[in-house]
């Protein structure tokens, strides 16, 4: 199939525009307006922005503190978890959901009393793409992504995160932002004010 080419006329300048350089002046008005505006940058190492709550930063492990979802109550009796410990039930769902599953190193053991206990939960963040699928797969809302984004490190070894520091990270994150609403959108009221009402069909 032959490609059709459409030729467009270049808009012609009027004589006034041509003589007085109106286009130049318009552009220069914009730049001088910007010159007197406030700068919008952040002096990064000295000033840090707080990302929104849904930001996908370094992972954390929520602890058993009574705020668990109902599914945890069902699984709890099979596990040996004390208060203040990670609420992970070692179900490997996060690893199943992960696009790069080998970055997880999860191990659990069976105690003499027959209960299951999490031994190890390592994540190699060098391979992590921060997609957040692990947090969505978690049945007990244990693995979360916090708002920490400064993940650079001098050694590869430091890029692997472990159970205890993930617990600490989630504790800190929940202390700061647990009660913050988990939405980045504005309210429906304001939205309808701005862009009009939606209308459902009458059945």
């Amino acid at each position, binding site marked *: 199939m032959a490609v059709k080419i459409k030729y467009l006329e270049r808009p012609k300048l009027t004589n006034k525009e041509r003589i007085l350089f109106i286009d*130049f002046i318009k552009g*220069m008005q914009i*730049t*001088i307006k*910007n010159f007197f*505006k*406030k*700068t919008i*940058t952040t002096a990064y190492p000295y000033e840090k922005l707080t990302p929104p709550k849904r930001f996908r930063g370094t992972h954390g492990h929520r602890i058993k503190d009574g705020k668990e979802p109902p599914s945890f109550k069902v699984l709890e009796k099979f596990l040996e978890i004390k208060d203040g410990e990670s609420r992970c039930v070692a179900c490997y769902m996060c690893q199943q959901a992960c696009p790069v599953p080998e970055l997880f190193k999860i191990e659990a053991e069976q105690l003499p009393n027959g209960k299951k206990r999490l031994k190890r939960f390592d994540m190699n963040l060098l391979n992590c793409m921060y997609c957040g699928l692990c947090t969505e797969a978690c049945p007990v809302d244990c693995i979360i992504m916090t708002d920490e984004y400064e993940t650079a490190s001098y050694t590869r070894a430091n890029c692997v995160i472990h159970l205890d520091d993930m617990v600490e990270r989630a504790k800190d994150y929940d202390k700061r932002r647990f009660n913050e609403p988990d939405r980045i959108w504005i309210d429906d009221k304001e939205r309808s004010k701005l862009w009009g009402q939606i209308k459902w069909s009458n059945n």
Partner: protein
Amino acid sequence: MELLGVIVGISLKALIFIIGMFLGAAYLTWIERKFAGHIQQRPGPLHVGYHGLLQPIADALKVLTKEDLVPDGVDKFLFYLASLMAFVPAIMILAVVPFGEPFNIFGLEIKPYITDLNIALILALAFGSISIYGVIFAGWASNSKYPMIGGLRKAAVLIGYEVALGFAMVGPIMQAGSFSLKEIVEAQSSYWFIIPNILGFVVILFAILAETGRTPFDVQEAEAELVSGYNTEYTAMKFGLFPLAEWYIATFVLSAIAVILFFGGWQPFPLLGWLPIPGIVWFFIKVFALFMFFLWVHWTLPRYRVDQITELAWKVMLPLALANIFIVALWVIIVG
């Protein structure tokens, strides 16, 4: 003995001018970066010193201590010569630029200019044309395609704009009846030469933008097309001299000449003559304002194509400059 005194005095003055211009150019880079930053709603240099005031010094140290690479296959002599050829003529124009009237300190008469030649303007034009060799040599000697294209583009642009620039300068010369920049300024004590010479001033604005390679006419660098243009193969201080010469010293000196020709040099602003401000300060205020105007244009406009630039030079700017001469001639006959 008197000759010795003159030589010592002039060398001392020249040294002061050169060092002053160097430091001034260094801080013009700071001003440009701040201005460009704020136009794009970012603060520019902020970290080194108060609001980045020590940044030019840090940059100078960086450029001076960098490894000075000379690529294989370059024409060594021209390669070294080019950076000097771009830089020296630009600063040589300063020799004829008068910054103010002679004044007395401790009974010693100090002239704030190096020399007052009767062909000053022609000398400035000549040095302006020599500085183009720096760019062409750099393009040729680098033995690389991007510098070559950049150098030739600059040559094509300059041929057009040198002619227009020369003709546009004729107006003030006709009115003052002299090539000496000092006498041109003195002739403007009643009114500035911008009044009949408005067309000439427009031509000079464009010619300065083209000559110093600032944005609407920066085809010789054209970083989106030519890497960095004629200075692609340069490193360290040899590289540093090119932008310093073109963007700062040449722009500043040519702004000074434009101010002298059209805005009355060190004469005060109209109706503000009663202010206790010395002439030299008035001069710097005007030059600085014109320099900032060039920065403003630079950081606003996109680049013209090469053919558009040369077309503009020959088809618009040259006729405008000639028309300016005609208008000024009528003005001289009628007004006197």
